[in-house]
């Protein structure tokens, strides 16, 4: 079988490499923390925008768990995110105001939505799977639109005003609390997910993506493990949804839309699937570009994204995130 594009045939095995160097695990979270702190100091007026990027990054990372690590084709991941956002929003409107509890509730709702979605879309493969995922997200969209009494329908759910974090830090007008909260959650999630994808369970999921028949032959179960990974992905997506409800105070219908699912997939592939960092890079590049180009003209923005996508798929199949690895490989060769 030909090597899968987007995944170099001789990829280094992440599980083995990390065991030799103990501190290596913490490099990426540290880099994210430093960049996050720099952004906080350099652009104190743009913190709301940065929070949006972090939410997108969390969501794309959760998508990476199922697309990049399990090979499940889905264009309906926003169901998980929207479940988290609506759960947190509805609970808050009904009187629960602790922001961390709200985010946790969003995460739980994401798990439930993930399990239900997994039951439907893991039944098929390839094109039917893609179509099922689209159908699921459209159903959820229509249901959220119809349940106007609870969700606010197309007007969106507003009036979400959570209390202070730990009872100490109020959500301020400049979005400082929101940004720090989001950054801490992002780093914690990154640490946990890196561990999960390098665990035997994570490697088994990779194996399922590459060759399900062989995994079955060596005694692994396919369906059960995929459902587990889907639930985990739902926890992260629900966390992102809950975070957005808490930090922005509104939940719109677009959080369960096909468009949001498709955008996340675009970000993931732009950055590179199956690495978790790629998800971060893709979310930053896409959301950043969108912020500046779409402000000029939304159609220009579409054209730019389209051209970028075609270019990445054809020229850089492992995504923008692979540029760094590529440069690193060039350097020692250039040095004498």
């Amino acid at each position, binding site marked *: *079988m*030909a090597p*899968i*594009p*987007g995944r170099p045939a001789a990829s280094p095995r992440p599980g083995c490499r990390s065991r030799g160097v103990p501190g290596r695990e913490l490099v990426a979270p540290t880099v994210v923390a430093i960049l996050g702190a720099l952004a906080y100091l350099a652009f104190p007026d743009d913190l709301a925008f940065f929070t949006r990027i972090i939410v997108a990054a969390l969501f794309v990372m959760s998508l990476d768990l199922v*697309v990049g690590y399990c*090979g499940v*084709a889905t*264009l309906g991941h926003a169901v998980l995110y929207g479940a988290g956002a609506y759960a947190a929003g509805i609970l808050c409107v009904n009187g629960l105001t602790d922001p961390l509890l709200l985010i946790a509730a969003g995460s739980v709702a994401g798990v439930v939505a993930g399990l239900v979605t997994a039951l*439907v879309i893991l*039944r*098929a493969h*390839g*094109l*039917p799977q*893609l*179509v*099922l995922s*689209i*159908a*699921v997200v*459209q*159903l959820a969209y*229509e*249901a959220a*639109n*119809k349940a106007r009494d609870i969700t606010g329908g197309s007007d969106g759910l507003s009036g979400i005003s959570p209390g202070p974090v730990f009872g100490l830090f109020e959500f301020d007008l400049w979005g400082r609390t929101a940004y720090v909260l989001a950054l801490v959650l992002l780093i914690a999630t990154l640490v946990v997910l890196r561990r999960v994808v390098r665990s035997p369970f994570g490697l088994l999921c990779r194996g399922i993506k590459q060759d399900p028949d062989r995994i079955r032959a060596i005694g692994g179960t396919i369906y059960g493990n995929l459902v587990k990974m889907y639930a985990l992905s739902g926890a992260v997506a629900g966390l992102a949804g809950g975070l957005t409800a808490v930090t922005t105070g509104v939940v719109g219908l677009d959080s369960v839309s*096909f468009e949001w699912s*498709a955008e996340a*997939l*675009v970000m993931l*592939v732009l950055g590179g*699937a199956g690495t978790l960092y790629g998800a971060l890079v893709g979310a930053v590049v896409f959301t950043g570009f969108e912020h500046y180009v779409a402000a000029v003209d939304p*159609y*220009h923005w*579409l*054209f*730019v*994204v*389209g*051209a*970028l*996508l*075609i270019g*990445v*798929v*054809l020229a850089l*199949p492992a995504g923008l995130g692979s540029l760094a690895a590529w440069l690193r490989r060039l350097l020692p060769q250039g040095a004498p």
Partner: protein
Amino acid sequence: MNILLSIAFDALAYGMVLFIICIGLSVMMGLMRVINLAHGAFAMIGGYIASYVAGPMGWGYVPALVCGVIGAALIALPLERLLYRRVYGASDPLVQVLMTIGLTFCIIGATNFLFGSAMRAIPLPALISGPVDLGVRTVPAHRLFVIACGVVIASGLWYLIERTSFGIRLRATVDNTGMAGALGVRTDWIYTATFALAVGLAAFGGAVGAEIMPLDPYYALRYMVTFLVVVSVGGAGSIGGALVAALLLGFVDTTGRYLAPNYGEFFFYLAVIAIVFVFPHGLLRRGA
């Protein structure tokens, strides 16, 4: 009774437009195994060219349809050579999905740049613009025209694929490209011809169906999912399957809109999930 008749008639017309556009996609996906999300964009290009030829240029309806079909095929063929060829048979469907979504975005941006974001109409000739009395009830003549087009195309394609030498080569290439090539079929040429045929049909559908599915730059995105769903439900590569799926889903969608308008497309997607569960390989699977 009256409302049932109008639902049935509208559903039939809508289903036929879906069929005309989707059959090209279905053949392409059966043959080249490429998930082409830009198919709706090609339909839109056909519609826009037709609207330009029939409107500002004033050449009339039939030349507009012909120009739309030829123009869209001319635009699509270089894209096939430059872009699509690289992702044929990619083992990861995401590569194809992403590249064709990118292409769709580019086409939407370009269309808006050239024609603006307003909705476009294709002026109909007098012959098919009025109502027609069928005895039971009067119906718009344009709908009859669309249904007739669908029937002609379905039978024409059936003849082309089942009875001509091109059809034999096409089916041989679908079943086993390597073996067909070894036996002297120019599979390269078959790919190009099929791509042109698929795009031409999409463009024709986009132009003919512009009354039912209105043309604006977001056309490509709005109907992208619908087309994909029809092909998947029908089973890629099957003419009969595409016809049944287009008519069935057209019927479900139209009925849903008439009887429960505020549920949107809820019933449409519910039906899709049910059908994919029962027939995971499509309603009529080719060669099964």
